[in-house]
């Protein structure tokens, strides 16, 4: 029987000033060397559970705690957090908030210094852990010079240096581009395999968890509702969809195939398993490529936003954009994507005069942005920036939403109507009287979106709107963008969560190397993996499966979603396969 690194015995926990338990009766044993994935919707208790491993909950937060947690044989209630830090390393969601030092080596050294590790030993450990997370040679770099993925790997290195036997990661990849996320998963998998470090990771990254985890723990409303190997847990598609948990595209594809009458004895959860499972189907049924395959996106009239030879250099000398030309027409749904730091936000900030071009020109509705004010542009273009917390400044959700409306000179009835409509669209009516900062991150982001939508702008720009959202929250926001688009609004979404966008965007602008790499219909752009790789993106899993099928059949298969892929197999000789 393997040794146990952590044990939870009938653990329940209630945060201070709360009546609802964040965790209820959790009993759990984690063997040494296990790779455990925590999945569940936002608010399920994943973060609370993660923070229990080193005693932050309840020692730091207080509240009511029941049961017992032991880690490396130490009771987390009886031992101070600083002692538990020798055994448990924690990596949190936002890499920015975890940086405490002004150089990479100082960041790694900080925890070791606190643990009184001798200087020579610290010196010896720094290169080793940096090598383990592939940051060797960057010792003297300022952490702010690193990309998002590198920062998160630095956070891992900083906790790894203390040689913990247990590494706990809470949504470590949600703010990273796909390649950065892959790098983090590759790194922790290697640490798990080579050093035997036990991994506990809370994540919505279904595809990566399916490949890496030994066991998944499904949490809902603070309770463990299921546990087992990924192929067993993800096989319960209906239940997971009911809980709004994201499934690997591969699993959904085969689930749809099964529902269409194909024989799929076991639902695959990884791309490799999917490729193996699709081959027998292909011998019995020729997949049919989609009928519509538009090579261009329809664009009518004068552009709403026009960018001509735009370059931008920040005051510190960093060139963020180089010679970009782009037109966005009324009624388009545009996805702007690219790696962390590709210049996506810098580009759209020019649309609102939050930045002025160093060279080139940006016009909105025919007028050059330097001749307009941000407040005037904001009535035409609603912009929801990345971090919701710095866009919240009112004492209640309702006041936040009505703030802009008071500047429009509307009647109080009209203000109330628009406010209620916006709150309802974002599912926030029940929290209208709450302080926005008291809400979970996902809801805080939706408050800001509701506040912008209340202005009823002609175009809406959402900058990374799905970051920190679970599947349900992300779909709620994106479904709303679809409604806005159907109502004739121009929608621009910036994200590197490509798997979410296949059902929504028509046109994709791919940015990288400080410029525009590709401007094409989504069905074209998503099927150019080499182009996407240039800017650290990877096509969604369904697209990769479609490409594998195209490779086998020699026929182009520009599918984007699991449903489309499954439908390709409905024609032909499916009857003989059940």
């Amino acid at each position: 029987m393997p040794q146990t690194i952590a044990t939870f015995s009938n653990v329940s926990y209630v945060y201070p000033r709360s009546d609802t338990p964040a965790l209820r009766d959790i009993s759990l044993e984690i063997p040494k060397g296990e790779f455990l994935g925590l999945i569940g919707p936002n608010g399920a208790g994943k973060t609370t559970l993660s923070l229990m491993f080193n005693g932050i909950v309840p020692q730091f937060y207080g509240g009511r705690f029941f049961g017992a947690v032991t880690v490396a044989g130490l009771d987390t209630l009886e031992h101070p957090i600083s002692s538990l830090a020798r055994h448990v390393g924690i990596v949190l969601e936002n890499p920015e908030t975890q940086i405490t030092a002004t150089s990479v080596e100082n960041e790694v050294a900080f925890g070791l210094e606190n643990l009184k590790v001798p200087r020579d030993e610290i010196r010896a450990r720094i290169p080793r852990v940096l090598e383990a997370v592939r940051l060797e040679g960057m010792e003297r770099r300022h952490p702010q010079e690193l990309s998002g993925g590198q920062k998160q790997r630095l956070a891992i290195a900083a906790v790894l240096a203390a040689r913990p036997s247990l590494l706990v990661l809470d949504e470590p990849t949600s703010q990273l581009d796909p390649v950065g996320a892959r790098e983090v998963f590759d790194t922790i998998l290697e640490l798990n395999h080579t050093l035997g470090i036990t991994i506990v990771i809370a994540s919505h990254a279904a595809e990566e968890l399916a490949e890496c985890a030994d066991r998944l723990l499904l949490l809902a409303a603070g309770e463990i509702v299921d546990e087992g190997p990924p192929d067993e847990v993800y096989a319960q598609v209906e239940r997971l969809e009911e809980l709004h948990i994201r499934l690997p595209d591969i699993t959904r594809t085969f689930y749809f195939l099964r529902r269409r009458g194909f024989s799929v004895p076991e639902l695959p959860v990884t791309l490799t398993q999917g490729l193996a499972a699709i081959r027998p189907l292909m011998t019995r049924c020729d997949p049919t490529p989609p009928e519509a395959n538009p090579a261009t996106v329809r664009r009518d009239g004068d552009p709403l936003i026009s960018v001509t030879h735009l370059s931008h250099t920040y005051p510190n000398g960093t060139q963020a954009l180089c010679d970009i030309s782009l037109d966005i027409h009324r009624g388009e749904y545009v996805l702007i994507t690219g790696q962390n730091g590709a210049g996506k936000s810098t580009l759209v900030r020019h649309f609102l005069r939050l930045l002025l071009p160093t060279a080139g020109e940006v016009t909105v509705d025919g007028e050059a942005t330097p001749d307009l004010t941000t407040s005037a542009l904001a009535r035409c273009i609603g912009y929801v920036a990345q971090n919701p917390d710095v866009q919240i400044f009112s004492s209640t959700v309702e006041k936040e939403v009505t703030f802009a409306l008071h500047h429009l000179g509307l009647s109080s009835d009209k203000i109330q109507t628009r406010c209620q409509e916006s709150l309802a669209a974002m599912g926030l009516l029940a929290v209208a009287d709450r302080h926005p900062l008291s809400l979970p991150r996902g809801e805080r982001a939706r408050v800001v979106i509701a506040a912008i939508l209340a202005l009823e702008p002609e175009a809406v720009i959402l900058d990374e709107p799905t970051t920190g959202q679970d599947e349900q929250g992300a779909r709620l926001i994106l479904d709303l963008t679809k409604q806005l688009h159907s109502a004739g609004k121009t929608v621009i979404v910036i994200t590197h969560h490509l798997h979410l966008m296949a059902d929504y965007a028509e046109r994709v602008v791919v940015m990288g190397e400080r410029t525009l790499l590709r401007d094409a219909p989504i069905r074209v752009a998503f099927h150019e993996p080499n182009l996407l790789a240039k800017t650290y993106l990877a096509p969604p899993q369904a697209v990769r499966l479609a490409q594998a099928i195209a490779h086998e059949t020699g026929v182009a298969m520009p599918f984007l979603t699991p449903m489309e892929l499954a439908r390709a197999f409905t024609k032909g000789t499916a009857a003989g396969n059940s």
Partner: protein
Amino acid sequence: MNAIALQTVDRRSVFTRLDFRPKLFMMFTITMVAFIWEDPRLGGGLALAVLLSCLAAGIRAGYIRTVLALMLPFSALVILTQGFFSTTLITTLTGRQPDDFRMLIAFPSTWPLVGGAGLSWEGVLYALNIVAKSLTMTLVIALGVFTTDIDAMVVGLVKARVPYKIAFVFSATLRFFPLLFAKAQAIIEAQRLRGLALEGMGLLRRLRIYARIVVPLILSSLIDSQMLDVVLQSRAFNGSSDRTYLHRSRLKAADWIAIGLTGLFLAAAAIGYAVFGIGRFGGVLRP
């Protein structure tokens, strides 16, 4: 964009090479000298020397401009108050009687409230001395702090027997201020993105808008500081000085020379003032 970096210099100079302890000593001695000297010519010269050192060390001219701009209203206020009301102080310092003061502005005694009051040249000179002191102190801190890496600063402070907890709080505060300004800017930006037209507003309305961001700023900063606390505790931080340090802080020859020279400067200024009257306020009034 680097949102959380503290203002630092890119240029290598004698200031960046020094340990933080001689810089700390330099900050102390120059501040003391600024306090000792009452002569605005010497005080102004010292302020100018520190300002030139800042520029030579690579502190951005934009930063110095901001400091000077922020000091303008303060300076104007000091000149007015000292110019009008420092009669007794100047008499004490110089023995000169109010009737002998050189008046720059004098209100007729028949005027209500201000009748008989006057702005004296001596008061203005004393005010300039105060302005020079303030400028010297502000810039010498910038010179010492901006030319030092924050982590080196912490080690230097601990070596100077400052408790680690205090040194860490000091360094965390330095890191925190740029973040706070970035947040304040982001909140104002968010308001502009909701149609708030700051462009057409008068100063008072703008000030009201700025005042309103204080509460969300504090709340948001509290959330950040709580998260930072979680991160620090997770990394075994408990504020104890009983810890090791990656970097050594050893005083080299250049550091000792800097300590010696600044110490000598302070001693010379003190002796010059006490024995020869150099730097006394009366000196500037002699013909």
